[in-house]
């Protein structure tokens, strides 16, 4: 197989394409889900194939096949050229790719303990123990835990001489408890909402979570929410925990900095961006303490890799510096529009997906002090934890997010629990109210496993370094 890819690449060169790349991916994905003491699902999925992208006569074509014979790859290459010719009928501007040096290299994500070698029984036991603890209250109607692990091998060749090889291991896990009464249902999760946390690390990442050790707290908080008062509406100072900050960064910064989106190629589905080209370099995105970076080089980050799916090496750069919007996530096609080289952010869900500009690890750089310090420094406010609801407009301005739980803060101390907390805002106004970010001791790169983009929809993992962060005078309440 590995010998066939350069052979097909050379065939495409002989046929006179302007540019072509070939990407072989072979992935194994496994998961176990335990629900209410029973194994709900254990599954193992393998898939592989080759995606061929061709630029010819000003048009792009992409064809992919799961058949990996010489004949199938030759047919797929021909189909990609046919599609490119059809695209060229309706292309408007000349495609210019940023010049990038040819890369030859390999990348392997860090993995101390191979998740494929950890016995299935050990994984089931870990989740079953946690579920046992979660279920020690009759009001817990659903106790659920999941562990997911995968390994993707990727070979990339392009007509400019780049040849790279990558092996990326992903480990992920989480638990959740849903408490139910006659007229309410409340959920608590650990370590984050939506199936937990994820990283490009081995099973050591899951072991250090201490899932079982947190199950009792998760259960008690879920039950407490059933009798907690509704979160009061109004303008509040709020502290968002790290996992909710990850979602906040993802939706209100990560997506609007995708340069393909800015240039209109996602208008048909997800929309555009308020961070238009004329705003780069001077638009005030947030308060002066807001420093946001894109960093695909963080060891173990869910959005980390060695090379993107155009063969461009992983990079770290500023997105927002001193509160000013300065940089985009970019590709080889979009980078020349803003006069830079590619930011190395082209990623595809798999062999059968065309690469798009995707988030890598988009991080709010840490500030100073602990969460305890920040709470102590807050006279009256709310601490919100774990995302439950996310909704944002088609230019990423008007958002409303909800969390699983909130605690009242009075005179620097945590007080009552509130249920159904939600807050909303306009992105730059909201980030302009950011006045404190906790320090490195509370900073963690959260893994988001379900970022969707594109047609056909591609779901990909991203990372978000974040610490608990305070915002002043934010509108709280879902309906008013």
């Amino acid at each position: 197989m590995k010998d066939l890819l350069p052979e097909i690449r050379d065939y495409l060169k002989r046929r006179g394409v302007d540019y072509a790349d070939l990407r072989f991916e072979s992935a194994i994905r496994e998961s176990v889900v335990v629900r209410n003491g029973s194994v709900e699902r254990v599954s193992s999925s393998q898939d592989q194939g080759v995606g061929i992208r061709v630029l010819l006569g000003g048009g792009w074509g992409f064809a992919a096949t799961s058949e990996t014979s010489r004949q199938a790859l030759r047919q797929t290459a021909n189909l990609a050229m046919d599609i490119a010719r059809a695209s060229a009928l309706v292309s408007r501007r000349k495609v210019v790719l940023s010049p990038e040096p040819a890369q030859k290299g390999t990348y392997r994500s860090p993995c101390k303990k191979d998740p494929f070698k950890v016995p299935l029984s050990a994984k089931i036991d870990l989740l079953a123990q946690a579920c046992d603890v979660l279920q020690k209250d009759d009001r817990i109607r659903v106790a659920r835990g999941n562990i997911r692990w995968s390994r993707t091998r990727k070979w990339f060749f392009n007509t400019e001489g780049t040849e790279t090889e990558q092996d990326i291991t992903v480990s992920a896990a989480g638990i959740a408890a849903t408490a139910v009464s006659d007229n309410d249902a409340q959920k608590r999760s650990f370590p984050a909402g939506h199936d937990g946390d994820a990283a490009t690390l081995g099973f050591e990442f899951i072991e250090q979570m201490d899932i079982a050790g947190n199950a009792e707290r998760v259960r008690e908080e879920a039950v407490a929410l059933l009798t907690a008062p509704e979160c009061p509406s109004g303008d509040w100072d709020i502290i968002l925990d790290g996992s909710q900050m990850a979602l906040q960064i993802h939706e209100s910064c990560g997506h609007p900095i995708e340069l393909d989106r800015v240039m209109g190629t996602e208008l048909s589905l997800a929309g555009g961006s308020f961070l238009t080209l004329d705003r780069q370099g001077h638009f005030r995105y947030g308060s002066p303490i807001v420093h946001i970076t894109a960093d695909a080089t963080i060891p173990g980050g869910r959005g980390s890799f060695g090379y993107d799916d155009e063969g461009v090496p992983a990079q770290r750069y500023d997105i927002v510096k001193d509160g000013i919007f300065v940089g985009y996530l970019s590709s080889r096609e979009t980078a020349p529009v803003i006069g830079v080289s590619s930011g190395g952010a082209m990623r595809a869900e798999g062999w059968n997906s065309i690469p798009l500009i995707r988030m890598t690890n988009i991080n709010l750089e840490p500030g100073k002090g602990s969460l305890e310090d920040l709470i102590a420094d807050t006279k009256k406010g709310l601490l919100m934890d774990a995302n439950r609801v996310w909704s944002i407009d088609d230019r990423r301005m008007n958002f409303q997010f909800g969390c699983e739980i909130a605690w009242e803060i009075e005179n620097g101390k945590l007080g009552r629990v509130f249920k159904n907390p939600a807050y909303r805002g306009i992105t730059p106004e909201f980030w302009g109210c950011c006045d404190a970010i906790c320090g490195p001791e509370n900073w963690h790169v959260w893994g988001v496993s379900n970022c969707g983009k594109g047609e056909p929809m591609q779901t990909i993992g991203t990372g978000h370094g974040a610490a608990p962060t305070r915002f002043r005078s934010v509108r709280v309440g879902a309906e008013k």
Partner: protein
Amino acid sequence: MREQDEILSLLTDALNESPYGSECDLLYVGQQKSLTRFTQSAIHQNLVVDDARVVARVMLDGGVGVAATNEIIPETLSAAILKATEIARQQTQPEKLPSLPTPSPIGVINTFDEQTASFSPSDRAASLIRLFNHAGNYRLTLSGAFTTEAGAVALVNSSGINLYQPVTSADLNLLAFSHNGSGYASGVGRSVSDFVPMELAEKAVEKCLQGTDPKDIEPGEYDVLLEPQAVGDLLEWTSQIGFSARECQEGTSFMTGKLGERIAGDNVTIVDDAMDPRGLPFPFDLEGAPKQRVFLIDRGVAAGVVHDRQSAEREGVHSTGHSLGAEFPNRPLALNLIFETGTSTYQEMLAQLDRGLVITRFHYINGYLDTRNALLTGMTRDGTFWVERGLVKHGVKNLRFADSMLRVLSNIAAVSSTTKAVSIGDDLLGACVCPAILVKGFKFTSGTDH
């Protein structure tokens, strides 16, 4: 594309390798997906992807294993059965799992169209050039996606089920853009002839022109005329949080404890019916159970939820044919929602709107904050208009709504006599069929700048 006999023979041979005393099923989903995306009236993404996948499930001694592969040859299918068996042997379940379905009569319906299967990238490009020219006549550009799919779903199991269904779909969504306005129109069907692209382009252009230079309005409660796409957007999320037996049994659904009670106005009947040709029909679920018509809300009364075999076993009832297959056990889902028609024409409903809004579609809805009260939030998008005394006056900037669907469904003043198929993302298995509805006092909480 593989032929029916070849696929069923491969699956049946693999089934014979399942261990003695086990139950086993193999699900095949093969697809050639072709898609052309465009923006500013130019193609920027054009692809054809050929893939097929087999999911093998083995139930043995109280354990269940699932293994999948996209390499469809005898050796890899045997390996998948072996892997699923190995997984099953490492578990025991505290409760006995229900058996796999046995053969039942499956409805006969044509889900395949040859013209759609052979629709080429050049065909799509040629069609789009005409649409781009039409928009250009008004100094507008088009963005969107034109998708055609052809494939097949096959299923065999150790209880004798042996099913094969070829399937196609076509989907075109169009957004017309001016300097500060946008308009949306879409079509979906089992065939590319189920919609007329130029009619959609004309609709998108008309909406864009009407909505250009949108004005601000204050958030608050407004009467709204929701067009079919907007109704489908709400219905899809309502189904996610409430029409599945699992959510109902676990107490998180707004239907929990409400079956038989009035939860909506008597002009609201919502069913799930995968055999209705107005949608994207498909005759069986991904475990091989026949799709049944299920009344979810019947003239305002909570009437039922959809089941797979696991949720059905828990209540001692039969599956309604809503399984998503071995990889999503215990997760029945309604994929073919139909909001039954009323008696009003669109123009009659518009005439009833004294002061209010016409809404074309919603964006980024989410309903997880308070599922027991079916509280949804989301934004309007691509065609929101201010109406006075039955006349559309001007476009308005997008608004965020936050409202309970139970409240919305109880405040419907009129339902249109015609419906439209609305895509819910996976055109292989289903779509919503929705009328336009006139809702009193729909709640908006905030606005945005466009």
